[in-house]
């Protein structure tokens, strides 16, 4: 039986897909069998971030509708051989996914993998609720910014109301992943800091991913950032988050401002 993780946020563009790929790859690197599933029907992107876009033949909707077997749709990663991708379809028909269909696919994945990681679409509509339906763990991806925090709060409420766990009277294990964290701005007091967000959302912290050009670089190459350059700051943060998911107790490092002293900051501000 796999642990089912849903990566969700409410707000768009905060780093869900980046996170799904990075944590999926980091977990798979430890030898665990991992399936990452793109629930963003109509706007698939996980295939691109994982560099598998040219190998997509069948997708989630094909499997749900019985047009392909799961084994035909799963794409094995070229770098980590315990990592698999189930891509989303490009169809614009959002109703292509049904609860029963998703239940069947998740059950089948669950029997074959150690981890199933569902990349949720933005929003709080059907696509997002289907993606979180089976979650044991929800990674709530949040940027330190008012609208993202507000939407995350909303998602936390929905996780407590609309998941299978919630309807069984259990609770989904919710973890905050603070992403695109800009240490310099937090130090200046121009950005909500970690303590602020934690206090407001009051769910445990899974990790803090710094804002970094390495993320864009990795996605340009089509390699999950956690394995593209494992020594880079965001890679380390994602690898640590994956280890915490596996039960390790690691202290969370709050990113510190990179070099560039007072003078350069002054100059930048004056410009």
């Amino acid at each position, binding site marked *: 039986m796999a642990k089912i993780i849903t990566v969700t946020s409410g707000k768009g563009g905060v780093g869900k897909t980046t996170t799904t790929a990075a944590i999926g790859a980091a977990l798979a690197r430890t030898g665990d069998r991992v399936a990452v599933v793109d629930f963003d029907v109509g706007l698939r992107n996980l295939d691109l971030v994982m560099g598998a876009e040219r190998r997509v033949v069948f997708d989630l909707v094909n499997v749900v509708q019985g047009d392909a077997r799961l084994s035909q749709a799963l794409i094995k990663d070229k770098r980590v051989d315990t990592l698999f991708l189930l891509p989303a379809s490009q169809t614009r028909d959002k109703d292509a996914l049904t609860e029963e269909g998703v239940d069947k696919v998740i059950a089948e994945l669950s029997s074959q993998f150690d981890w199933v990681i569902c990349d949720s679409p933005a929003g709080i509509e059907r696509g997002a609720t289907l993606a979180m339906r089976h979650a044991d763990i929800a990674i709530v991806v949040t940027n330190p*910014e008012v609208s993202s925090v507000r939407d995350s709060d909303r998602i936390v409420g929905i996780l407590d*109301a609309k998941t299978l766990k919630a309807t069984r009277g259990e609770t989904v294990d919710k973890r905050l992943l603070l992403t695109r964290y800009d240490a310099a701005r*937090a130090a200046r007091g121009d950005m909500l800091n970690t303590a602020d967000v934690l206090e407001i959302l009051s769910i445990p912290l899974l990790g803090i991913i710094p804002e970094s050009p390495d993320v864009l670089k990795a996605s340009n190459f089509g390699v999950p950032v956690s394995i593209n350059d494992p020594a880079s700051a965001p890679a380390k943060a994602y690898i640590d988050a994956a280890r915490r998911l596996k039960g390790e107790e690691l202290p969370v490092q709050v990113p510190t401002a990179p070099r560039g002293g007072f003078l350069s900051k002054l100059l930048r*501000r004056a410009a």
Partner: protein
Amino acid sequence: MSLWNRFFSSSSSAPQARERLQILLSHERQVLGGDDLLSSLREDILAVVAKRVPCDREAVKVRLDKGSPLSILEIEVEIRGEVASLGRAAA
């Protein structure tokens, strides 16, 4: 903003953000709570009330006290002005 300020004020806006969020979310958690039943009920009630008396979204609060064997649905609608006169005007 003056040049002086741009250079030297620690224009920290984060405390503002935190305060606004705390106020907003304590409200939204009550009225939305992610629970579909409650938010649909709220919308329905708002529509019914607003037909007769002016009433805005924030004025309708719906809470469900889940219990067993009895749950209590609590509905609170704030209406500004005098209801009697409003009622006649709308009729």
